[in-house]
């Protein structure tokens, strides 16, 4: 199993213990995970993501068998097309974007074009709904959550689009999923990092209604415990305990 939502690097709004690639590899070993897609956490808050991408590839180079760099591509930044091609050449399995942090609205054409272009190169676009619970955010952390409207807009952008949406909860997933055509739904997978387990059993309900194939494993390490989504899978009710997660 691959963790599609991990990062390296510090977080600007609180202390995060040892957010390093070697620590991540130890966590993968301990939790029996095969590998991880890794973003560069500070890059979400940089204006120019290029230096962060360079640092990310450098940090992960010694661990490239297990850790795959997922660079950040900012579609309103000069040279983003070249950055996308470089990401592909460097073997990135996907790219990341943070439209809310860049002030790009839910229907921004540049985001749609990025999603299409990445998809045509066989790279899903990883979106982050939130880094932290709304209730604990720093007073300077004013970006807000990624909206369901933004996700629907990207999912509708074109046939080539593939989205991996991380850190969404049940309500957002349902709002997006049932607001898309079946063909559009197949362009989106969701990680399970922020979905509640028992007793409300949101994950089980989503498996029954949306289908397990629309979900992938993600933890949002190092911000959150990787044990949480694993525990959620372990506590599924019997009727969905054997449901297989989707693939990216």
């Amino acid at each position, binding site marked *: 199993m691959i963790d599609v939502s991990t990062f390296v690097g510090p977080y600007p709004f*609180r*202390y*995060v*213990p040892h957010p390093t690639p070697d620590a991540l590899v130890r966590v993968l070993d*301990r939790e*029996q995970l095969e590998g991880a897609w890794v973003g560069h956490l500070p890059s979400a808050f940089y204006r120019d993501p290029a230096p962060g991408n360079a640092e990310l590839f450098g940090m992960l180079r010694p661990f490239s068998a297990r850790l795959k760099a997922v660079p950040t591509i900012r579609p309103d930044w000069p040279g983003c097309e070249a950055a996308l091609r470089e990401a592909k050449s460097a073997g990135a399995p996907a790219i990341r974007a943070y439209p809310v942090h860049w002030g790009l609205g839910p229907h921004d054409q540049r985001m749609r074009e990025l999603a299409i272009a990445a998809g045509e190169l066989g790279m899903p676009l990883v979106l982050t709904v939130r880094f*932290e*619970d709304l*209730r*604990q955010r720093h*007073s300077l952390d004013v970006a807000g959550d990624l909206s369901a409207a933004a996700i629907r807009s990207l999912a509708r952008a074109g046939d080539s689009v593939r989205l991996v949406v991380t850190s969404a909860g049940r309500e957002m997933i349902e709002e997006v999923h049932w607001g898309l055509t079946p063909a559009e739904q197949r362009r989106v997978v969701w990680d399970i990092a922020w979905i*509640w*387990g*028992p*007793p*409300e*059993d949101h*994950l089980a309900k989503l498996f029954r209604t949306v289908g397990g194939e629309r979900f992938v494993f993600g933890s949002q*390490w*190092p*911000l*959150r*415990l990787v*044990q*949480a989504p*694993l*525990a*959620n*899978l*372990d*506590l599924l*009710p019997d009727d969905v305990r054997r449901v297989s997660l989707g693939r990216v």
Partner: protein
Amino acid sequence: MTAPRGAGEAPLAGSAPLIDVHAHFYHAGAGRADWADVNAARFRAGDRIGITSHVASVLGSYGFSSPTYFPSPADVERGNDAMLEIASRDRKRVRMFTTVNPNYTEHALREIDRCTAQGAIGVKLLASRRADDPLLDPIAELAGKQGLPVLHHIWQHRTREWPSQEISDGADLARLARRNPATNFILAHIGGGGDYMHTFHAAAGVPNIYPDLSGSGVDRGMLDAAIAALGARRLLWGCDLTMCTGLAKLRALDTIGIQKADIEDIRWRNAARIFPSNSFERCGAVQ
């Protein structure tokens, strides 16, 4: 201590005693059709995790006929009756807090007496009145006299008012706890939203405050910081609304380098110390 994934039907968190000090149950007057399913899911997941005892409360009508955090006296009684009924069915597995609204002081005191006589072992305060309000003192005093810990709903570092509750934080609860040193307070859900680091600093010098680990938040570093600031003897394990995060925190405790005895304190011994003696038959005696 905790078992690996896929360990058959053995408890996922091992067979050592485990007390969830922050659980809730629902009832037919709670305004949701699936209330019995949610209760059953808590028992199902509790068995799978290996929870020895659920210490639970019912929060009035959960907003159906009065607000969750401001329950009317009638809803308080109806909820407590429902909780008494659930606890009476399996007292070895389920113990209860008496929920009260401190704006109705006499009613609150009567409810504590009524429910304690029928087996309640603690008092649950919501967010009906700020924690440091003098109106809470008679309730805290009665709880202290009867040896009942008070579980108080907390927002970790309140920076503004939030709708639907009169929210308190660790500093507010610390003022109440200092005024009532003979009463033990459970500071609710450090993972339940807000800045838990503020809470750890606010509660560090107040030894009759015991934060519980419950809540959906699973920030890395939170458990380490709690133990560093307060020590394992001050922390209680719990789930609240998300049992998956409760199991995750147990597994995390196994990985952050603390002693087995400290883990046992958090799992159940601290709870056994602050609740009335012999509240948890299935856990054995505290050393």
